């Protein structure tokens, strides 16, 4: 049918109102459109204008039924392969022009089936656009004019050239609209599917990134769901448990670690989950013999657990506690010593002024020992050094009125404390009544005498050049310390004599581990 009547001039140009196609709609060839056209009763093809020659990428059954071609024969062809050689060039040019401009178009055309039978059809073409208004698909529907096969005929009983065409044009508009709505709906579906997939991919990549971060941190990290099943376990947490993460995931915490049921860990976990509040606590695991610090954070999924091995820290804290306790102990013992010293001094004092002077001197003697002990955290005091420091306030000058000879001996704190007091008392006496006045001198010597149990310190204080010593006034406390205190506290023996030319004091104490020792490498008796 060559006479297309008023349709020749009646090309219906839709306003070029591009479909707001969702942006992700750009994959091709697009199998996603197949479902859109598959069930349509109207013979329809989809082409892809972004491929060379705008080939057909999708075709429905109605089209194959109409034309007699198989899908394989249709796919890859141009939309106009049905037009045949006799197609009106003016019409095909109009179609091409409309497509170039991405306008929708309806034309009346003679097409041919595979067996060569001519079919009069109305062709509707509409374009699908992406966000940037670029055509990504064209949808073309061919509607057969009934009774046209084999020659000119009427369409639905209406004569060609009559008023059937306006009706057809209306049908075509509706068809295009229906197509467009279908495509839009499908696009929306596609978009949803793509968005879901994208989210899934993002979640997967986020999860991968999270896993990488979690495996790199030094703390154990776990998540459990509301049924107390492990949902995430990092390498550290698995290593602490002595298991592989895969073994733990999906398992119930309390089934996997039944020894923790009923423990603080169990209670805290349930508390955090039930009250939806974070908890933080320290827990000793008897099974692993280690201390852990746990942090539980409730989440919408269940609980997030951070696990930190603090065994080393706890050990350090314990050491610190022991050291502090030891220090406390020493301080309290020192206070007890000072207390007894003051009681003792007070009882013998003739006046408050007398007490003040004597007590201050004795307190100073203790302070001297204490500062030698605290210097550099020493646990021992050098005998020679202790002697010199205790004699420092007096007019004793080594090499002039004072001679000191002896090997290097290190004294334990309590030994040093007692001997420091002894030295102080001896020096005070010497200052008041003896060798440190009137040109006297003092010789202090000591040796280490070998014994079966580690040696004995023989220490001697010998004053000389003293005359007219006031025997009656001297040495009550010092004498008591030497004669009673040294044997009581240090063991061994001692002697305190007031001779005609000064005081002679001999102290002999076993150098047990608790008293003191010869400095390593030092020769005894030098």
């Amino acid at each position, binding site marked *: 049918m060559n006479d297309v009547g008023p349709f020749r001039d009646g090309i219906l140009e839709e306003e070029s109102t591009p479909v707001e196609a969702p942006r992700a709609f750009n994959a091709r060839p697009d199998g996603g459109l197949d479902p859109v056209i598959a069930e349509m009763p109207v013979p329809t093809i989809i082409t892809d204008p972004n491929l060379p020659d705008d080939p057909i990428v999708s075709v429905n059954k109605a089209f194959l039924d109409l034309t007699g071609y198989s899908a394989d024969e249709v796919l890859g062809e141009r939309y106009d392969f049905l037009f045949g050689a006799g197609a009106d060039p003016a019409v095909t040019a109009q179609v091409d022009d409309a497509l170039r401009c991405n306008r929708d178009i309806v034309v009346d055309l003679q097409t041919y089936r595979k067996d060569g039978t001519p079919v009069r059809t109305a062709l509707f073409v509409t374009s699908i656009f992406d966000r940037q208004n670029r055509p990504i698909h064209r949808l073309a529907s061919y509607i057969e004019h009934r009774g046209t096969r084999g020659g000119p005929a009427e369409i639905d009983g209406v004569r060609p050239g009559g008023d059937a065409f306006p009706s057809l044009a209306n049908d075509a508009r509706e068809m295009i609209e229906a197509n467009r709505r279908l495509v839009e709906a499908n696009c929306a579906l596609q978009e949803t599917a793509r968005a879901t997939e994208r989210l899934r991919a993002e979640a997967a990549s986020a999860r991968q990134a999270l896993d990488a971060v979690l495996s790199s941190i030094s703390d154990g990290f776990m998540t459990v769901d509301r049924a107390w099943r492990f949902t995430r376990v990092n390498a550290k947490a698995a290593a602490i448990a002595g298991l592989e993460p895969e073994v733990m995931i999906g398992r119930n915490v309390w089934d996997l670690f039944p020894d923790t049921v009923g423990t603080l860990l169990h209670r805290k976990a349930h508390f955090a989950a039930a009250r939806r509040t974070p908890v933080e606590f320290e827990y000793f695991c008897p099974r692993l013999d280690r201390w852990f610090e746990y942090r539980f954070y409730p989440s919408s999924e269940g609980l997030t657990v951070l696990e930190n091995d603090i065994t080393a820290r706890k050990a350090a804290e314990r050491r610190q506690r022991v050291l502090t*306790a030891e220090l*406390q*102990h*020493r*301080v*309290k*013992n020192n*206070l*007890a*010593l*000072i*207390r*007894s*010293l003051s*009681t*003792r001094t007070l009882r013998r004092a003739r006046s408050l002024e007398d007490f003040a002077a004597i007590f201050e001197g004795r307190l100073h003697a203790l302070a001297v020992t204490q500062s030698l002990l605290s210097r550099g955290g020493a646990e021992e005091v050098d005998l020679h050094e202790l002697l010199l420091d205790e004699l420092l306030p007096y007019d004793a000058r080594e090499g002039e009125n004072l001679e000191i000879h002896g090997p290097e001996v290190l004294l334990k704190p*309590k030994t040093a404390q*007692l001997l420091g007091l002894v030295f102080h008392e001896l020096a005070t006496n010497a200052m008041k009544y003896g060798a440190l006045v009137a040109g006297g001198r003092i010789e202090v010597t000591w040796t280490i005498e070998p014994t079966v149990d580690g040696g004995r310190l023989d220490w001697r204080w010998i004053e000389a050049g003293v005359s007219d010593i006031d025997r009656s006034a001297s040495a009550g406390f010092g004498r008591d*310390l030497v004669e*009673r*205190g*040294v044997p*009581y*506290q240090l063991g061994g023996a001692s002697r305190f004599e007031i001779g005609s030319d000064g005081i002679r004091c001999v102290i002999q104490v076993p150098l*047990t*581990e*608790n008293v003191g020792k010869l400095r390593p490498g030092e020769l005894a008796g030098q």
Partner: protein
Amino acid sequence: MSISELDGLRILLVEDEYLPAVEVAEMLHLLGVEVIGPVPDLDSALNAVSDELLDGAILDVNLRGEAVFPVAERLLARNTPFLFATGYDEWVLPEKFRDHPRLTKPFDRLSLERVTAAALRRVNGG
């Protein structure tokens, strides 16, 4: 001064430092106590527990580097009341002695009397 609750009792004093030992012994004398000791080391303390009739004992915890606990064990075995006199906090004591009466150094005569009397009552009373 009223007659103290400790008057006439025989109490062992174990203390390894001379001056505090002398002072506490004097305090106990003033309370009418017959002081056994003082003794400065583990051996003499153990001997005293074996050899003497004791109403009680006051134990310094650290004796020349040795812990006094063997003495405490022997006193427990004999059902002889005792208390610790120490500068250590209670947690340093072994578990079984943690609830035992304890005098914290330094202490005065009043605390000495009160804690010692309470310790002696504890065993004698039940």
